[in-house]
């Protein structure tokens, strides 16, 4: 008797054959999408439903929700983003049972309730890069449901500017005996460019509406406060300039939007053009338009796109990665790797920071997931190429070790105001994430960035350089020293504060020659969305919710 080593391939072929009955070639009508899933998905399958913090395979997710439960049930969903209500309805309907994911943004409250009520069996909460990695090791999908802009009759896909996770999902699924089903906005004779080759795609569903994309990276300059401008000035003069940070990633908060809008004004006055912030791993932030137009930025690689930026990107192909068709080619996995290994700094906001410098965006009633920040905001222990900022940070952290054997350090900067929304303090004795972990019996508290990776904390009170702290006590006092009037801040030791300030561990605005009264909205290169449109020469087309003129 001969042993077969191709069971999986045979099983896949049988599934394709069953699905083909509903298709004309590879094309399946939207009304038959649920029947297609009943034909190719088996109970208990691992299914990747494409959805991240931006684009969503929303037609396929609705179709999956509508399957006959006697045919498709107890699925193990492995997906970047749990974003649409339908993603969680799957568990209420018994279609899905287990979940491994990375980001849950708008569903963060409901997902916490469902986990607590035992409605969802949780695998783990990941960063994007971790989940992608597991697609190739122990979470390989049996079926992937993905989204693209257009397809030809052979199944070649054009993803448009929002390529994002698609190539990674397809790679893991198609080459390990899985089935790829794509929803597309239109079927065309020839796609503008081939983002996914057709032989990796088994079925194409013509959607009755374009896939949904969330404008997650648009910050209205009109909402930037004077305090945020002050933190941005501190960052530029106190971190970007002394380390000469050229390769970096920005978070999506208002503080980093303020930095982007201060580069052509404040940064220019400091003589920093060409010396800092030239190469980015970054989505196409509209707030970066004035810096790009002023010649600050040389190159940007993007995780995804941003609503309204397509024409601008197309016209600025010197800066962005674009295909032969002219539109942006984004790639979340590659950009995450770029942020981890090729950037010298991550700077972003958070909701809570504890006395060790651990930070979290979790509150007791929400599980927002991690997304990409932990990859950006982590020292890459496998990094081996030197750069001046990386070496300088390494020197500050460890002056004793000989230069040839000393590791560099990535600059991981947390920036924010000491009090956030509704006067919630940024600094806390204990992260809410711990209470949540106890409540849900998690083995790990959801910490966004671990304290030992954080190098600087910037608030309106100044900059704490944690690289220069020599023990846990100094570290705690450095953090308290920039915590302002929060309870943590008021609990500082005044003598220790002075000593740390003399050593430059803590630097207040006046220590850097910054007058808080200069933090004025007139310093922003753009003060409204309309200003950004003007800077772009009319190429930026903001989504309706950001148009107020």
């Amino acid at each position, binding site marked *: 008797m001969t042993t077969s080593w191709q069971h999986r391939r045979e099983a896949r072929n049988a599934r394709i054959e069953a699905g083909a009955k509903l298709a004309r070639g590879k094309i399946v009508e939207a009304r038959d999408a649920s029947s297609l899933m009943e034909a190719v998905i088996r109970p208990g399958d691992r299914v990747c439903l494409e959805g991240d913090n931006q684009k969503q395979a929303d037609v396929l997710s609705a179709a999956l929700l509508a399957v006959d439960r006697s045919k498709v049930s107890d699925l193990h969903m492995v997906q970047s983003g749990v974003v649409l209500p339908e993603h969680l309805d799957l568990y209420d309907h018994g279609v899905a049972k287990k979940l491994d994911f990375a980001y849950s943004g708008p569903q963060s409250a409901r997902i916490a309730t469902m986990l607590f009520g035992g409605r969802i069996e949780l695998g783990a909460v990941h960063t994007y890069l971790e989940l992608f990695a597991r697609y190739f090791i122990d979470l390989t999908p049996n079926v992937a449901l993905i989204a693209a802009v257009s397809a030809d009759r052979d199944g070649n896909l054009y993803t448009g500017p929002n390529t994002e996770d698609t190539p990674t999902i397809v790679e893991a699924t198609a080459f390990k005996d899985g089935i790829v089903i794509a929803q597309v906005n239109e079927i065309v004779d020839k796609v503008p460019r081939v983002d996914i080759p057709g032989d990796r795609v088994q079925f194409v569903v013509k959607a009755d509406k374009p896939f949904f994309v969330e404008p997650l990276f648009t910050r209205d300059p009109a909402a930037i406060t004077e305090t945020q401008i002050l933190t941005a000035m501190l960052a530029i003069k106190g971190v970007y300039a002394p380390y000469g940070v050229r390769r970096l990633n920005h978070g999506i908060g208002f503080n980093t939007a303020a930095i982007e809008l201060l580069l052509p004004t404040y940064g220019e006055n400091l003589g920093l053009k060409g010396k800092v912030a030239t190469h980015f791993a970054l989505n196409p932030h509209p707030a970066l338009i004035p810096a790009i137009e002023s010649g600050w930025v040389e190159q940007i690689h993007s995780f995804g796109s941003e609503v309204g930026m397509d024409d601008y990107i197309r016209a600025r192909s010197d800066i962005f990665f674009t295909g032969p068709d002219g539109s942006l080619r984004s790639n979340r996995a590659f950009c995450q790797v770029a942020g981890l290994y090729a950037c010298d700094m991550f700077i972003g906001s958070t909701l809570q920071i504890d006395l060790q410098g651990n930070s979290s965006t979790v509150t007791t009633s929400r599980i927002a997931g991690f997304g990409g920040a932990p990859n950006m905001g982590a020292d890459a222990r496998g990094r081996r190429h030197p750069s001046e900022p990386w070496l300088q940070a390494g020197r500050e952290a460890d002056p004793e070790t000989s230069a040839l054997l000393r590791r560099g350090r990535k600059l991981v900067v947390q920036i924010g105001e000491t*009090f956030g929304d509704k*006067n919630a303090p940024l600094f806390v004795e204990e992260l809410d994430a711990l209470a949540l972990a106890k409540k849900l019996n998690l083995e790990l508290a959801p910490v966004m960035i671990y304290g030992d990776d954080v190098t600087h904390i910037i608030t309106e009170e100044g900059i704490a350089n944690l690289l220069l702290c020599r023990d846990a006590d100094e570290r705690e006092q450095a953090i308290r020293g920039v915590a*302002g*009037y929060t309870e943590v801040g*008021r609990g500082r030791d005044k003598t220790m504060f002075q000593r740390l300030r003399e050593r430059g561990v803590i630097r207040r605005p006046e220590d850097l020659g910054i007058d808080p*009264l200069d933090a004025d909205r007139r310093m922003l290169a753009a003060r409204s969305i309309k200003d950004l449109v003007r800077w772009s020469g009319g190429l930026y087309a903001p989504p309706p919710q950001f148009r107020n003129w």
Partner: protein
Amino acid sequence: MEDLSFSHKARQRAVGTKNMAIIGVVASGNLEVLAERVLPDTECLVEIKTAAEGFGDVWDAVVADFVERTSPGGLKFSINDGGARPDTVSLRLAQAVRLMEEDDQ
């Protein structure tokens, strides 16, 4: 509403000759500060009407640091607060002192 009042000794007289200045707006998360040069040169008074109750010790700390940093001797500050965060309070107080430094026309 809560009324708070903090009286401090100041190291020196506030610079300038202006007698009165007003800055900020009474709005949610913001505040209005009226500064008047009406006290002896070594005294400073800050009177607060705030919409957010129970933050007396934070106000105490913010005002003490403000007096320490800017030494606004001779000035009385009247604050109408709409629940501003401490960073905004510090900023408006400093802006008020800056306005008082200007020469009176």
